[in-house]
């Protein structure tokens, strides 16, 4: 220890180890070492003998600048620079740091410390905003005292129509804590304006959507999938049709962040389902400029333009999850984005055999786009547990069900021809005599979800902009955290 060494201790009253350290701090003080004791909550426990050495740090500014995570912390400074630190109580370490060989002679060898108030949940980000550098590059907007921040977001056109969580710097920093990616990394250019989108901009929109930080890897991957040229987000956003990105999540992350794949999986009530989908759509609106009535030209739109996100039920070992069927290794998490509309229920409470259920579901699928339009749009069939049980008991897997549905949906050209049955819409009459596939190969996806009771499944119609399937199709991406 040099002659110029000074010491800073950080303590709090509610920590038993800090109480244990009081006589030790007194020994250091009495030994003539320059000592400053920063207390975080109430300094009375330090006693009158140390009063002259104490500093009120209830604002936690010193704790923040000293990067204290545990109390007690003892720091040695020489020439203004830190040359040593110990946390909690360790007789050996404190003696080494202070060069007082008899320090704490009557105390136990070791006691762990407690968490510093400066790292309590939510506090760290607030201290960084107040006393440090946030690193956030997005323009700041000041909302006047007394004004409603939610209304300020409405006024600036940042909302999808529902209230948003005001994107304060503290919330943005917490959201960025949900990913290891650099906040300034550009994840892609978001159509229609092809604006570069950083991880930070995604985090801001995720805050507004109501996401928790642990959802960030899903939001980021869903956006990256939607920005794949094969998904054609520009067309999906600007189209007169109904579609928006429908996000289907597979793998362990779905359970870890509490996503719903069961009862009401396609409905309301689950924070992760609701806010992940909303975050993606807010990015399209705010970063990409895809605002309805402007370049979003949807004739009717759909509720999915607020949010449409759910997890697949992977609780049946015999069922190959959607992501696995699309090349993602088992046990990995993934997102599939599908340009989809709303939900069309298919009720069949009488089928008991896989063949008759397939024919029934195919009738529902034939309505996608229009019952007489083929090779037109993609679709997702969400199989409920009770419908799936009929297939499972018969030994039918994903591949067989998909194949059987495609077979049932080879439609007679004369029946779906324009003008047939008094309906002008339809396929070119020149294809009469052919059996025309309703869907392109690969354009019918099967997903399992739903509650245990109900012989209903759901058809999600796809965007017809990809009439040539290679122009617009579902995209699956593994989630990297």
């Amino acid at each position, binding site marked *: 220890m040099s002659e110029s060494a000074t010491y800073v201790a950080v303590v709090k009253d509610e920590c038993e180890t800090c109480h244990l350290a009081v006589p030790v701090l007194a020994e250091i003080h009495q030994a003539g070492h320059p000592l400053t004791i920063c207390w975080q909550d109430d300094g009375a426990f330090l006693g009158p003998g140390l009063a002259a050495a104490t500093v009120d740090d209830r604002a936690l500014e010193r704790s923040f600048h000293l990067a204290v995570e545990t109390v007690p912390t003892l720091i040695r400074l020489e020439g203004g620079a830190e040359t040593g630190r110990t946390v909690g109580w360790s007789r050996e370490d404190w003696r080494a740091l202070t060069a007082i060989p008899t320090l704490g002679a009557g105390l136990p060898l070791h006691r762990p410390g407690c968490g510093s108030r400066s790292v309590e949940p939510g506090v760290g980000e607030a201290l960084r905003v107040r006393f440090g550098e946030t690193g956030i590059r997005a323009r700041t907007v000041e909302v006047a005292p007394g004004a409603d921040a939610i209304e300020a977001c409405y006024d600036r056109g940042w909302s999808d129509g529902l209230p948003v969580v005001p994107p304060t710097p503290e919330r943005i920093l917490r959201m960025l804590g949900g990913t290891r990616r650099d906040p300034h990394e550009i994840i892609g250019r978001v159509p229609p304006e092809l604006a570069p989108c950083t991880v930070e901009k995604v985090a801001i929109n995720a805050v507004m959507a109501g996401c928790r930080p642990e959802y960030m890897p899903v939001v980021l991957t869903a956006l990256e999938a939607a920005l794949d040229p094969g998904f*054609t987000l520009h067309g999906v956003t600007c189209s007169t049709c109904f579609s928006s990105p429908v996000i289907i999540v597979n793998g362990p992350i779905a359970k870890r962040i509490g996503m719903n794949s069961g009862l009401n999986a396609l409905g309301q009530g689950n924070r992760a389902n609701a806010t992940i989908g909303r975050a993606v759509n807010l990015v399209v609106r705010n970063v990409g400029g895809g605002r309805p009535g402007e370049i979003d030209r949807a004739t009717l739109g759909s509720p999915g333009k607020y949010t449409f996100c759910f997890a697949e039920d992977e609780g049946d070992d015999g069922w190959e999850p959607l992501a696995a069927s699309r090349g993602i290794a088992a046990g990995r998490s993934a997102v599939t984005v599908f340009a989809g509309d709303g939900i069309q229920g298919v009720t069949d409470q009488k089928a008991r055999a896989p063949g008759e259920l397939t024919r029934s579901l195919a009738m529902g699928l034939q309505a996608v786009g229009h019952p007489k339009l083929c090779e037109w749009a993609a679709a997702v069939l969400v199989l409920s547990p009770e419908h799936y049980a009929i297939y499972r008991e018969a030994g039918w897997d994903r591949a067989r069900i998909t194949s059987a549905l495609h077979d049932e949906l080879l439609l007679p050209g004369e029946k779906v021809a324009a003008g047939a049955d008094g309906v002008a819409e339809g396929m070119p009459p020149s294809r009469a005599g052919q059996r025309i596939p309703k869907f392109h190969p690969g354009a019918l996806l099967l997903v399992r979800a739903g509650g245990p009771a109900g012989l209903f499944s759901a058809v999600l119609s796809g965007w017809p*902009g990809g009439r040539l399937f290679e122009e617009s199709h579902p995209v699956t991406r593994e989630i990297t955290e």
Partner: protein
Amino acid sequence: MTESAVTLHDPTSETAPATRPRRKPPASLHGRTVALFDIGKSRADEFLDCLETRLHARGIATARFAKPTNAKPATNAILDDIAAGADVVVEALAD
């Protein structure tokens, strides 16, 4: 009770498109070339064929342009070709 200001961060791209005044339409199409732009919607060709026939009947030159699919935006190359090769554009937008 004292309230303090709330700081928010902008969720948008923070960009603004450059705006410029729209060019006035020509007083007459004679001596001009009309671009007929097919964006890939079904039956756009029928509509543009019909229009082209009528324009030619009036002695007005046309030039046809197309993008391969309505699903994706026009490339800069196509837009540059139109700007270089025509004076006005008719774009067949709908089915």
